[in-house]
């Protein structure tokens, strides 16, 4: 059964990612008061985690392909191709964050008859989206740098590594953005 190798290589990484999920989930349980004071906040959580996962793994796999194509490597990392990729990821994160805030606002009114403050909700999402995008984009570049330096295949490392750190960093960003907006509002 050749699929045994899948179990050996993937099982430890998947359990490790699960521990990342437990840390993310406990951050959620620390946010219970915020969910009551900001209706609609809990609605954006799966979407922001998914946004982060989709954009950073796409960035990771594009940089992996760029490496295989010979466009970037450890000695030639900070070039125009990398910068275009970073700008692309940040712009995409900003636009999708606005869409998330807007959808969450509309559905919260339609389904729950709650009336969240749209400015507050959308600013929390944008702040969390941009902060997590900046942190994770640079984390991706750092991971890619070490992967290149060591001569590993980036396709095997960046996905699981980003999945583990991504959830935790994103949850912390939502937590602090919500507190920040709640304090200044």
């Amino acid at each position: 059964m050749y699929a045994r190798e899948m179990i050996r290589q993937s099982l430890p990484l998947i359990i490790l990612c699960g521990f990342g999920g437990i840390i993310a989930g406990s951050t959620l349980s620390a946010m219970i008061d915020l969910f009551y004071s900001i209706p609609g906040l809990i609605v954006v959580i799966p979407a922001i985690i998914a946004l982060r996962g989709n954009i950073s793994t796409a960035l990771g796999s594009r940089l992996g392909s760029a490496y295989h194509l010979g466009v970037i490597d450890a000695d030639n990392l900070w070039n125009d191709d990398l910068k275009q990729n970073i700008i692309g990821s940040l712009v995409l994160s900003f636009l999708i964050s606005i869409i998330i805030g807007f959808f969450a606002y509309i559905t919260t009114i339609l389904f729950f008859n709650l009336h969240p403050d749209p400015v507050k909700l959308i600013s929390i999402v944008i702040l969390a989206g941009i902060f997590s995008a900046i942190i994770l984009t640079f984390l991706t570049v750092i991971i890619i740098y070490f992967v290149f330096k060591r001569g590993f295949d980036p396709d095997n490392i960046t996905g699981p590594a980003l999945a583990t750190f991504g959830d935790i960093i994103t949850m912390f960003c939502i937590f602090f953005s919500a507190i920040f907006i709640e304090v200044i509002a």
Partner: protein
Amino acid sequence: MIYSWKKIVKHGLPLLSVFIFAEIFAGNILQNKQDMLILYPIFLVSFPVINGVAGNIGSVLGARIASGLHVGYIEISFFDKKMHDNLFSAIFIGLSSFFVLGLVIYYFSYYFLDQRHVSLFNFMFIILLAGFLLVFIVSIVSIVTAFYSFKKGFDPDDFIAPVVTTVGDVLGIFLLFLLISLFYL
């Protein structure tokens, strides 16, 4: 220079918006169950873990099926023996991960979140059943997505991860609350 940020945004935006819309519905389920989640924070800790593990298993399985199709040792057939081996391994990885992570979540919630009024047996039953159903459905979705995109001449690697994580997130939250209301509360 082979990358441009405008192209990255233009290619990413439409598909991401559709997936984000589905994630908002997952968020609406959470908003609907908010009062229950505050009484039982153990489930608030569980849902990022369940979603993350299922998404990861589906992505690994899909990537392996895609490589098998590219190289030619897997055929587009629901009776393919190698595909079945991969599917069984995915389910085995899922059950083992949920067993380990379920125990960690239970004792973590018991000691740190003061979650004393949930029995270990009931919690493990819900996590393992939800986990098994989710990994099974996500694996089938992953295989169908790999077969379909390969047949249509697209690169399955571009589609599997986003489709599988989105389906996993929405269905994971849905299944978890369905089983909780059927067997628990």
